[in-house]
């Protein structure tokens, strides 16, 4: 499977490396190439392998030149290059110039270190690529060796031992009974203030007070709390009604603040 490295497309490029730049067929070939490489490191490794020397002895300078030539050619053919190829090209150009400087003028980190790092990365990628090829070439189950075609199967029959106790049983029955018993709802008779009585109460109180009054002041003072709630609701509706009829003014300074009202004369 990994023999793809030596696929026809690649050897085509190798053969045509110094050929004329304009041939249409070569455009296509080069296109295929760019599709075929998984990023700059992949391309570099391929170029390195074409030096046909042990990867440990590869010349980084030569490799850099080959890569840069390749990128220049691709640019000359106006091929769309992925950004990372160009980033790698720029980095390699820098590496090359740094390597060519006299040792005392070399920048830090040293170009030797950078080159070594690149070298180590190529070795590691190459090692994994070879390992993958050897792995794929092993006697693989379902391809080279086969399991039994029709195994009887080993079965584990799970048998449930159900648990339930006496109390759970009768409790469940009780709950069924309760749930299905006819339910009678009783609404308790309680004191309410009707809208009519609230209307007359509020309007009469407005008549004797000229100043702003809070709505709560209209409620019967010593009433049962539940009656007070009913009275508050009725009085509020009564206040709205009186305001609608033009008999009262309403004011509220803030949301949920006290509701004020006063009578309108005439």
């Amino acid at each position, binding site marked *: 499977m990994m023999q793809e490295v030596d696929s026809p497309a690649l050897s085509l490029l190798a053969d045509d490396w110094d050929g004329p730049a304009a041939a249409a067929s070569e455009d296509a070939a080069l296109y295929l190439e760019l599709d075929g490489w998984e990023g700059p490191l992949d391309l570099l490794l391929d170029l390195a392998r074409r030096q046909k020397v042990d990867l440990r002895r590869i010349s980084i300078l030569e490799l850099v030149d080959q890569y840069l030539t390749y990128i220049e050619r691709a640019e000359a053919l106006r091929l769309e290059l992925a950004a990372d190829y160009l980033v790698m090209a720029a980095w390699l150009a820098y590496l090359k110039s740094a390597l060519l400087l006299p040792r005392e003028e070399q920048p830090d980190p040293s170009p030797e270190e950078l080159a070594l790092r690149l070298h180590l990365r190529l070795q590691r990628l190459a090692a994994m690529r070879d390992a993958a090829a050897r792995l794929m070439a092993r006697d693989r189950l379902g391809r080279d060796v086969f399991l039994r075609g029709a195994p*009887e199967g080993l079965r584990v029959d799970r048998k449930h031992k159900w648990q339930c106790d006496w109390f759970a049983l009768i409790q469940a029955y009780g709950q069924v009974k309760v749930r299905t018993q006819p339910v009678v709802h009783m609404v308790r008779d309680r004191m309410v203030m009707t809208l009519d009585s609230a209307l007359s109460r509020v309007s009469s109180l407005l008549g004797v007070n000229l100043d702003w009054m809070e709505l709560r002041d209209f409620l019967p003072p010593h009433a049962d709390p539940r009656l007070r709630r009913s009275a508050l609701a009725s009085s509020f509706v009564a206040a709205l009604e009186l305001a609608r009829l033009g008999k009262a003014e309403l004011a509220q300074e803030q949301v949920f603040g006290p509701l004020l009202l006063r009578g309108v004369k005439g």
Partner: protein
Amino acid sequence: MNRPDDLVRAVEAALFAAEAPISEAEISAHLGGAAVRDALEELAAHYEGRGVELVQRGKLWHFQTAPDLAHLLRREREESRRLSRAATEVLAIVAYHEPVSRAEIEAIRGVQTAKGTLDVLMEAGWVRIAGRREVPGRPVIYATTPDFLTHFGLESRRDLPGIDELRAAGLLDPVEDALAAAMEEPPDGESQAPLASGEESA
């Protein structure tokens, strides 16, 4: 042990990998038309008495595990599981109302009862099918088993607490009331049963 020759090995592998019993002709076709009869005989002899044997059924050959070992290929494991709430309810209804049809169970529970729930109870060995009710549709009716009595420590179904006892135990209180009663010990918590008796005596 003497090594089998290549033809025997190939026949052995072909039989092993085959997904169904396979004829002499098919094996032969697989192996480029070689005569495989002798190889089959040799293999059958080799496997005789082993844990696996090569058998011929009609024209077809296949490996099978030795019949006397069949019991090893299946293993039972018991797992303890708690009966679900729904299943407990259904069991209780069967116990109190037996024999009872599924429709009747549903009417009492007020909810639909999955078929699986009754299956679980039958698997547990507590409920059995007790025949059919002679009404239109002849529905299956269910009843409890002797195992049910044993498991729940009952002499007979009459040992199940009656409705009055359930009520006295608070098991017929609406759930919310029962909860409330449990939460705040009652100032007027006596209001349920004792009230009735109190009224009578008054």
